[in-house]
């Protein structure tokens, strides 16, 4: 996979994940008072920030990964020999 110099850039994936990521952040900031008041309740509500972190990391993580690939910033072609 790494050998191909003409790999297709994941532009569509970047756009889709970017839109979802922006929507997540827009919701978080638009509803911040409500979200803060629920998340600060503690107890079982403690799961909410953890779930939120996983959801954001999935969508935003996929977006940032494709972002660098689309810009052409990719891992070395002759992958690093670790040992």
């Amino acid at each position: 996979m790494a050998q191909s110099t003409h790999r297709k850039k994941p532009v569509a994936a970047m756009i889709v994940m970017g839109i979802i990521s922006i929507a997540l952040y827009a919701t978080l900031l638009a509803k911040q008072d409500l979200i803060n008041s629920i998340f600060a309740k503690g107890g079982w509500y403690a799961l909410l920030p953890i779930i939120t972190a996983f959801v954001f990391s999935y969508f935003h993580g996929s977006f940032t990964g494709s972002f660098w690939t689309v810009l052409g910033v990719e891992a070395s072609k002759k992958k690093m020999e670790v040992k």
Partner: protein
Amino acid sequence: MHDLAANFINLDAITILYLFGVGFVGGLVSGFIGSGGAFVLTPGMMSLGVPGLMAVASNMCHKFPKALVGAMKRFKYGQVDVKLGVILGVSAEAGVLYGAGIQEKIKATYGDAGSNLYVSVAFVVILATVGGFVLYDAWKTYKSGNANSEEKAGKLAKWVQSINIPGTMVYFKALNARVSILFTIPLGFATGMMAATIAVGGFIGVPAMIYVLGAPSLMASATELVIAFVMGVGGSLKYALHGMVDIRLAMIILAGSLFGIQLGAIGTTYVKPFMIKVVMGLIMVIVLFSRGLMVPVYLAQLGLIDKLGDSTISLLKNSSFAIMIFALLLGAFIVLRAMWQGRQAERLQQATGALEHGKV
């Protein structure tokens, strides 16, 4: 604890950009050396008016998803030993709880100044010994001209790998050897204690994996991300149970740090392994000076030395914070520079190869 809700700060565009930017640089360094950023982020948030515990909690809640993304990226490059990371991570979790308990006792007995002094002294002593050694080792590798050669396990690691304790031996891919978990448990515990004390467990975890267990630098720094993830989930849940996580701060920092961690992880594929030690050692030694500057402030607060003037205290505090930011920026600069040079060298090699091929 619910009154903490009253302490949620107002977010304006400048604050968001600041958190995003520090998150990016912290993520870049973490993606490369496995940890870092927390020592700037926590005081950085406190300077915005976020209460101390909420800053620690929010930092931790951005750390575990960041570490997860970084670990997955570096797993693709074959640099992560999941088994070693999980085993060290679980024992680190115990270390975090024990370390936090010690912190609470010190705070109850000697107050805030006592607690701060303990943290600063731990910083100075550990960073001076471990950081100094890591930097010395990187320098030795550079001077020896063996920077490109395969990393070999040191004497201590060879001894650890030679000890056979029946019933406790586990094979680890990163070490290509079987090691007793009776060695890994204390190392994980120490990493967790460090994370609870100075917020950067990796300053113990990564050197321990390299020098005590015999892992190559690239695998040690990548596996540290698994440890950070395991520790971070547990720690975040503990703080969230008391409603201390400001999810807005955590997610904004995460927004920047996920850009950074991807770049830092990509960077590891271009550099010589000893560069991990260079960046880590340099950051550790510079941060040591930053924390060292604060020691007289806490000593004066405890009445152990003469009182300091307000202007002196403010000068020491500002210098200390500026040096920490400098440490992080220098780390980021070295990572980007090394990555740039690696990419240029690879392109040149490809171009030369293509040219020669064309001639034939």
